[in-house]
């Protein structure tokens, strides 16, 4: 088995992989988005497993959720209620959007996992007290984990976790940079599966696996060819759990060379200072990494960040890939469209639910947008 197969397998069956970890004796906590402090979970000797929802029909979850909840909330709750996530020891709900915050209550009241925690992040990242507040929240989360696991999370364990996550994030950034320079080095759908798997795989093994994978890519093992005349695109949104989407973009004359996704570059953006107070350093990264639209840094922070990414990676157009009913992203879109178009960066919107829109309609949108670039 080559290194890539480990990533593809984990991305394809996250629950099976998580259940395997649990069977091996390590407790597993599910988490909802890239604002979950994975480093602290890992330092407690617990495996953090990102939850992605389900592509199956949601049957039980709909009795607990309003129609305006996104397919991620719906799918995650469904997987908990139908037993798919039965191997979990619990879940961590970072407060990013309102839906995730409300989902956390519904989860707590309707499931019977051993551990449950809300990590209520600040909304305004530009306020002076926000950092202090988040440090306090992380401290509290650490105490909750300690009380549950019955063992202290010491500084040495936190330091090791920080190093592990820094190393993995650096390698994912290297992978993206490599592909931005040479989109033929590996297909977009594989890159998306690799990043997804990095939120599923054993984190202690992850930096090593990524290094070997990067070597395989450099050796040309996964070269695709044929992207020379394709338009360079950036995908922006919350999560994209559809590797096929990248192939459809490629078949429509484009190639995704970078992203601003919660299941993409936002998950590995930013570095944690390994020296000094570890919780302070973990908190600091959340202020320094690119924010998601549920956080406020300034009125134009996201527009500026997207424009800078587009320039750096010679992007010709931006595809906003939004989950239906994801209101933080949906509310940001009209301003971002105006802001980016004023900077001559064309954008288009693709709204999806758990599954992609019918192939014909999606292809028509993609082909038309790419043709206009």
């Amino acid at each position, binding site marked *: 088995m080559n290194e890539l197969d480990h990533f593809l397998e984990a991305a394809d069956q996250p629950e099976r992989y998580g259940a395997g970890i649990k069977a091996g004796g390590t407790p597993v906590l599910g988490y909802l988005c890239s604002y979950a402090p994975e480093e602290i979970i890992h330092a407690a000797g617990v495996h953090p497993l990102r939850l992605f929802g389900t592509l199956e029909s949601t049957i039980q979850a709909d009795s607990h959720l309003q129609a305006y909840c996104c397919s991620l909330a719906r799918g995650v709750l469904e997987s908990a209620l139908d037993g798919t996530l039965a191997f979990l020891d619990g879940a961590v709900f970072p407060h990013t959007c309102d839906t995730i915050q409300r989902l956390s209550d519904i989860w707590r009241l309707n499931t019977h996992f051993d551990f449950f925690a809300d990590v209520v992040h600040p909304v305004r990242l530009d306020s002076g007290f926000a950092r202090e507040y988040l440090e306090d929240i992380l401290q509290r989360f650490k105490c909750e984990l300690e009380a549950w696991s019955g063992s202290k999370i010491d500084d040495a364990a936190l330091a090791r976790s920080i190093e592990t996550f820094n190393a993995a994030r650096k390698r994912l950034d290297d992978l993206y940079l490599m592909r931005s320079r040479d989109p033929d080095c590996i297909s977009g759908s594989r890159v998306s599966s690799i990043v997804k798997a990095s939120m599923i795989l054993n984190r202690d093994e992850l930096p090593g696996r990524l290094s070997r994978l990067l070597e395989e890519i450099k050796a040309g093992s996964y070269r695709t060819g044929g992207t020379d005349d394709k338009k360079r695109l950036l995908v922006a949104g919350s999560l994209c759990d559809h590797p096929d989407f990248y192939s459809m973009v490629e078949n429509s004359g484009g190639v995704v060379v970078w992203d601003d996704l919660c299941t993409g570059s936002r998950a590995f953006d930013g570095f944690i200072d390994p020296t000094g107070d570890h919780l302070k350093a973990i908190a600091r990264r959340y202020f320094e990494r690119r924010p998601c639209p549920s956080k406020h840094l300034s009125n134009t922070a996201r527009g500026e960040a997207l424009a800078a990414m587009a320039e750096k990676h010679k992007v010709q157009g931006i595809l906003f890939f939004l989950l239906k009913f994801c209101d933080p992203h949906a509310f940001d879109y009209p301003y971002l469209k105006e802001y980016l178009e004023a900077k001559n960066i064309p954008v288009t919107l693709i709204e999806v639910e758990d599954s992609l829109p019918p192939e014909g309609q999606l292809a028509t949108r993609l082909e038309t947008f790419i043709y*206009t670039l």
Partner: protein
Amino acid sequence: MYTAGIDIGSITTKAAVINENGIIGTKIILTGYNPSEAGRRVLDELLREYSLRSADLAAVVATGYGRNSADFGGKTLTEIICHGAGAHYLNPDVRSVVDVGGQDSKALVIDDRGKTKDFAMNDKCAAGTGRFLEVMARALEVDLDEFGPLSLRSSKPSRISSICTVFAESEVISLIAKGELREDIIAGIHESVAARVATLAHRAGVGPPLMMTGGVARNVGVVKALEKKLEIPVEVSPRAQVNGAIGAAVLAMEEASRK
């Protein structure tokens, strides 16, 4: 030099043949079950009518949802791009196009050369499309071609509030049961389609001069309702339904001239 465009839509398949001097001819057939067969047949029949052979064609462009169903020997381009090119060919002053077809509606803004600048397309639901009208025509037992003229007689359009085609159909059935006039119900249906299309049009940023294309443009009731909603005149060419095929033929001509 002759070129052809084939537009394989969800309900009808259209073909157009042009040369440097203008449109030679167009043809419309029902798509049926086999889109690639429909594409081939409509072109063959059209060529036969004008005593042309496929070898006479310098280029062919296929468009519509069935554009990739077979290899027609040339490029494939989306119907959005082709409707922009077609509308520009029919009237070079046009800057916005609203295309309402069988299962999709689209709004697009074009530049002074007919190239698409921005667009919006309906989501997967059939509200605001030809299929919506077909379902309602069946419920009302009225021939779809009668819809336009009948609706113009209405003085008090019924209110159809459901967006979903299936729910709207039951709403229409309730209106029939309540004894509302057929022309009022049809006018209400047209207003409902126009409202959906106007939403798209706003999202794409359309403005005058605006042309409506696609099969639904044949329905004068929808056109009038759309004019009212958008508060701008809506131009309709007699060739509205074959506009996508014409645009495809025009883009085939550009392609052939570049060679």
